[in-house]
């Protein structure tokens, strides 16, 4: 078996074995690791491949969560349809947000996403008849093939399967014509456009795909949480996503997974710091950009190059 496949196999085996011996809270934490890791994948595509930045991913996350909750509770459709609906709604809005900022270079998209997330949060808060507004919205537990999953133990495996599916899609996307074009655009927009790669089309695809992933994650999160309120989807959430993706590593699926672990476990580890916690996250983010721009996953490559081996991912 080639080493890359062996590594993936081992990682999946470890992930599958993790919940054993843990309690209900442990299941919940592991489930949120998977949910965050999906957002990590989405930022992988947007920032790592596309070179675009979003500080409004909580907006897409919220759209996915509310869309799924509404589809499941108001229309009575099954859980998986709700999750898909969450992804599609978020994806459509992703394309819409990218649309106006296409004609200019620079950081306009980032600013637009910041405003967008705020707009979504406000909209969900004000539109009471549909979203429950201030009171929030109750979401049923996830159910598969007619049976409701009461424990997060079973749900974790569903999430793991969906994460692996999305990771596989992201991996193939990176190797596809579209993915490679996107990376060419990131390195030099002018050079890539001269080679006949249309920038607008690819930026929209990157944004829509990324928003779709985030929407799916949001929908799954809604069913894990059981109750939605707009406060969950604040700017702080967007910034946590961004720092998680950067600290995990923006250029690989493994990085997204490490980011998920970081975001879910850091509050547990840093709990005793109370108010200073968020300051520590900020400092970690800055240190990471300065000293480890490849994220935690690049430690593997650093070690391998010390040993005189090629970095993972090169044939």
């Amino acid at each position, binding site marked *: 078996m080639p080493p890359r496949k062996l590594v993936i196999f081992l990682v999946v085996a470890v992930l599958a074995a993790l919940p054993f011996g843990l309690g209900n809270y442990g299941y919940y934490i592991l489930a949120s690791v998977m949910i965050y890791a999906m957002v990590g994948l989405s930022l992988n595509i947007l920032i790592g491949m596309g070179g675009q930045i979003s500080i409004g991913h909580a907006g897409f996350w919220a759209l996915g969560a509310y869309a799924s909750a509404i589809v499941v509770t108001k229309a009575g459709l099954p859980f998986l349809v709700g999750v898909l609906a969450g992804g599609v709604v978020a994806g459509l809005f992703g394309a819409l947000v990218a649309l106006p900022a296409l004609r*200019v270079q620079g950081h306009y998209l980032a600013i637009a996403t*910041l*405003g*967008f997330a*705020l*707009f979504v949060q406000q909209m969900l808060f004000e539109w009471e008849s549909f979203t429950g507004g201030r009171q929030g919205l109750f979401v049923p537990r996830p159910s598969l093939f007619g049976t409701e999953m009461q424990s997060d133990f079973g749900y974790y495996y569903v999430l793991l399967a969906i994460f692996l599916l999305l990771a596989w899609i992201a991996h193939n996307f990176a190797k596809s014509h579209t993915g490679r074009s996107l990376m060419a655009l990131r390195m030099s927009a002018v050079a890539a456009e001269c080679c006949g790669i249309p920038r607008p089309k690819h930026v929209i695809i990157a944004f829509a795909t990324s928003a779709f992933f985030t929407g799916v994650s949001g929908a799954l999160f809604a069913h894990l949480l059981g109750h939605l309120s707009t406060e969950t989807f604040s700017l702080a959430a967007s910034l946590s996503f961004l720092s998680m993706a950067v600290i995990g590593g923006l250029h690989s699926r493994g990085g997204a997974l490490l980011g998920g672990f970081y975001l879910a476990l850091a509050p547990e580890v840093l709990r005793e710091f109370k108010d200073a916690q968020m300051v520590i996250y*900020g400092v970690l*983010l800055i240190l990471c*950009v*300065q000293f480890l721009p490849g994220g935690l996953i690049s430690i593997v490559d650093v070690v391998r190059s010390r040993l005189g081996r090629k970095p993972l991912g090169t044939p």
Partner: protein
Amino acid sequence: MIPQLVVSGLALGSIYALLALSLVLINKATDVVNFAQGEMAMVGTFVCFTLLARTGLPLVIILVLAVPIGGLIGIVTERVTMRPLQSAPPINSLIATIGLWMVFHHGAGWIWGYDPVRFPSLFSPNPVNILGARVAENSLGIVGVSFLVVAVLYVFFEYTRAGIAMRAASMNRRAAQLMGVNIGRVSLTAWGLATAISVVSGLLVAPLTFLDFDIMFAVLLKAFAGAILGGFNSLVGAVVGCLVIGVIENLFAAYISASFKDTFAFAIIIAVLMVRPQGLFTRQIAKKV
């Protein structure tokens, strides 16, 4: 009713304008959009607040001291976080400013607490009569201070060596460097100057509401909108854009919807990018390869 709304809108707009000037200054000099600018202003304002509470100095002195305080915050931040990223891809600097946002935002809550505090105002809210319109003294004072800052900035850019060096660096970094402009110092000056200006804007906005760690977020969003309206590369454009935003915001809140008055900035950003992406005041510049 409308003249009052317009004048208080101009006052609001000139607060946004100061923050927008900081954003544009840093963007021009170093190609970084500093998302933490509002939070740095907020921290500077809190430092001024502590100074005021501890020493009891008159408010005017505090307003003057805000400039070196802000400058120091900016310079230290540039040295510690931005300088090491000078040769990294620009997106890394952008991410670092988001880290700065977290540090300053939550650091302020950690140090000064999460409860809003009252910040005294330099100017009284009593109305004065100008051409038949009753205008709050407060609004006139805010516009006056902002105008002063802009005037000083104009003199700096037109008549001082450091200012001219900054203009040169923002036009063509490499050429400026070959002419002996110290790019590192330009970046340092930009951060110091920008943060000083933004702390002044913090001091002006704090008395209007209460001072707390969340105060500058809405201001930042509108400063972005104003700066984009002005083209993000033009200092004059940013000022005019923000004044327009301030007036529209006031009219919007009074006649259409008060609860959406913070999100309308987003609508303006989208509209500008759709209709005239280069802003009202700059010509589109083709990027050289």
